[in-house]
């Protein structure tokens, strides 16, 4: 199963740019009035989720049980 990726809720985003400013790895940018996320750069630190005044960015986590000898159970 693919890892979750950050969710940008476009209906809530007001393009304020706070997330772009706070991102420590410059993974976010504004491109023609739209927020763009560079997944390769993203460190999943959660700073953008914390600072967004509209709750428009979510960083979900998939929880799995991993047996060190056998690998993931799902």
């Amino acid at each position, binding site marked *: 199963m693919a890892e979750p990726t950050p969710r940008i809720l476009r209906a809530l985003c007001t393009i304020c740019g706070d997330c772009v400013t706070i991102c420590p790895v410059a993974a976010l940018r504004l491109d023609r009035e739209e927020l763009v996320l560079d997944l390769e750069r993203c460190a999943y630190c959660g700073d953008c*989720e914390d600072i967004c005044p*509209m709750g428009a960015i979510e960083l979900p*986590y998939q929880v799995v049980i991993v047996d060190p000898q056998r690998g993931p159970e799902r």
Partner: protein
Amino acid sequence: MDIGQFLARHEYTRDLDLSAMEDVARRATVRHLTRGEVLGLEGERCSAVYFVMQGRIRSLKMTAQGREQVVNELRPPQAFYLVPALDGAPLPTTTQAGTRATVLSVSCADLIELLDRHPSMERRVLVSMARRLRHLADLVGELSLHTVSERLARLLLQEAAEPSSHHLTQQEMAARLGTVREVVARALADFQTRGWLVVTRGRIEIRDAHALRSHADRTEV
């Protein structure tokens, strides 16, 4: 969103007639806050009640060690400082804008007068506070048996056992546990230090389910 639109949707005021709504709006002031801006300090006298229109407000308490700890995060359309406005006691927490934010403020004196003049608003505030009291009573009951750390362990095991297309954020985990994201992050870091799990990008890999389950099943007596 302007004051009128906000009041027309808020649970305390949406059923008011036009003149009552105008009475509330006349006494309300919109404040735009920058991130970090403080609204009230723990221990101070209450001067106003606030309603969150946009952004997030952090509620902080001073620990015995003199550190400030986030105890709650308030989002639209939550109201805060209602209790000190009503009982006249000092502010129970410091509140600070966690993001850029907009709040509606009503002075304590105006709030009391509004509740006196508009019984339907008073009733809605009472019902809301009764609901909050019930939630807190349930939480106290749960916390008296299990710490946040133990309940997080149980939640993680449940999430791992029940496949779902909706993966929780740390914020959602915190909301389920009646705490804040910072506490969840610290508990996860603690579990990782103990070797029970590893937190990576978008994944929490439980490496020692047995230890996590033992921790989840501990009961404080």
